[in-house]
């Protein structure tokens, strides 16, 4: 570590201390980490399926109300292409709606966190919006947009945007004052202060807001697809609806499995990893977990 040959005794001591400080456990290999994060989830799935099977065998409900796991997975397999097409349509809506929600939520969050007037005016309104069940918006959405794609997107956006805005506002609120002062001392002012100090410091809370926003968007979207039938679009929600009207139990459960899996995958694979990555970078989580 030491570059000068003529280093003093103290220099040598200090670099000795430095290397002592840095001696940490080596990081586990990628495969090992993947396995250690995957096995609890796989175990949970196995336990869930086992319980389902047991309940089925117990005969608690007839099979037209609660089919066996194997029949549901057989059904999933046989209708795979229809389901995938529906999932693709649904994901398209989810991404468009969530994207609009991120844009609107971020802009509103940024404005509100920068201005004291705006914050007292609409800060608590945003939180209020967040507690509003998205289904309650549908009658109004249908009046405004008819039975259309627009009505569904409207509810998705209004469900997710407040969470995104709140995440950003909370993040900006909790930027450590010491870091803002440090930025000021370094010469950052106004926009520079926001860009170099406040925005990066607020990033972890913002990502948490995004994650929460996604959960709201996904829920609102499912409610919307069940309630609002757009002709020609056989989305996941519509497939669920059709199966329900046909009293087709295996079909209902098969679609539910898909909805659940998509929700979990986006939450853990995308947002879970993003959050963990940021926390590790920012030193908010233990380095070796």
């Amino acid at each position, binding site marked *: *570590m030491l570059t000068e040959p003529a280093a003093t005794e103290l220099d040598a001591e200090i670099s000795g*201390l430095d290397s002592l*400080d840095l001696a940490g456990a080596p990081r586990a290999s990628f495969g090992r980490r993947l396995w250690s994060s995957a096995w609890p989830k796989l175990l949970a799935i196995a336990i869930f399926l086992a319980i389902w099977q047991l309940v089925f065998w117990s005969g608690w409900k007839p099979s037209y109300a609660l089919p066996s796991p194997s029949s549901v997975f057989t059904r999933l397999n046989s209708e795979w292409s229809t389901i995938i097409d529906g999932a693709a349509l649904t994901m398209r809506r989810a991404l468009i709606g969530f994207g609009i929600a991120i844009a609107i939520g971020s802009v509103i969050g940024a404005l509100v966190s920068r201005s004291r007037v705006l914050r007292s005016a609409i800060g608590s309104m945003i939180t209020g919006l967040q507690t509003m069940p998205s289904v309650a918006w549908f009658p109004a959405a249908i009046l405004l947009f008819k039975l259309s794609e627009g009505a569904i997107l409207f509810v998705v956006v209004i469900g997710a945007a407040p969470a995104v805005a709140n995440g950003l506002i909370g993040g900006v609120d909790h930027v450590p004052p010491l*870091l803002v002062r*440090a930025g*000021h*001392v370094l010469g950052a002012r106004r926009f520079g202060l926001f860009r*170099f100090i406040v925005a990066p410091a607020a990033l972890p809370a913002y990502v948490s807001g995004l994650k929460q926003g996604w959960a709201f968007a996904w829920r609102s979207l499912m409610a919307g697809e069940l309630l609002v039938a757009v002709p020609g679009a056989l989305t996941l929600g519509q497939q669920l609806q059709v199966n329900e009207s046909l009293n087709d139990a295996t079909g209902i459960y098969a679609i539910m499995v898909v909805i659940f899996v998509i929700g979990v995958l986006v939450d853990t694979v995308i947002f879970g990893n993003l959050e963990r990555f940021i926390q590790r970078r920012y030193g908010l989580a233990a380095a070796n977990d």
Partner: protein
Amino acid sequence: MALPWASSARRIDDEIVLAPDVPAVRIDSVSKVFGHAPHAVHALDAVSLTVQPGEFVCLLGASGCGKSTLLNLLVGLDQPSAGTLEVNGRVTLMFQESALFPWLTVFGNVDLALRLRGIPKGERKAEVERLLEVVHLRGFEKKRPHQLSGGMRQRVALARALAQDADVLLMDEPFGALDAMTRDFLHEELERLVQERHLTVVFVTHNVREAVRLGDRVVLLSSRPGRVTAEFPVDIPRPRRIETPEVGVLSTEISQRLRAEVRRHRTDDIHAD
């Protein structure tokens, strides 16, 4: 710095035409009150202090006597309630906690200081490396603050402060939380840097020996309200070491004075009750 009080101070300089050199720091009857009437805290009361260019002044005082407040005023983070401050040249402040940005690497933290100073990208990399060399942290560029020890973080903070190329370096108990060996090392580094770069330093500390080890002058502040109560020139030749007898003798003298100050406070409080 575009300080509102700088112009009036310059006017004073013009009147005293014979003054040979402009002081690096001039604090003139500065008071600072926090809050309003019934709950007002008089953090500083008519503090006056002049620091010459290249001088190393150590501020000593009990906790809460307004040392940090004074440094904040000097660096422009806050405005005085009364009096004038003047800093000639670029000024920077090193905080007690390193105040590094956790989302940036060691390299990024130092680089940001250069970037905010307007140094073009092409010149920054070499300069960051040079500065990290100065604080013996080459090879740690990619580490993040939370991966470093307290002493290393303070060295990064020192490198970041040096990156600002300031003439006046304000330091608020920068080595307070470090082990003795790391602190001795940083004292040597700081002494060397100050001489090389002709820095003016105002250094706040609780540690009397540290003040004597480093300072050309040790200034005592009283508590609530903060006032300058005594000054001790330090004539011990450099390079110094914290454990030498000369440092010990003067430290004892200053400590006694400091204790008398604190005792006076206790009797004051008793009378006030």
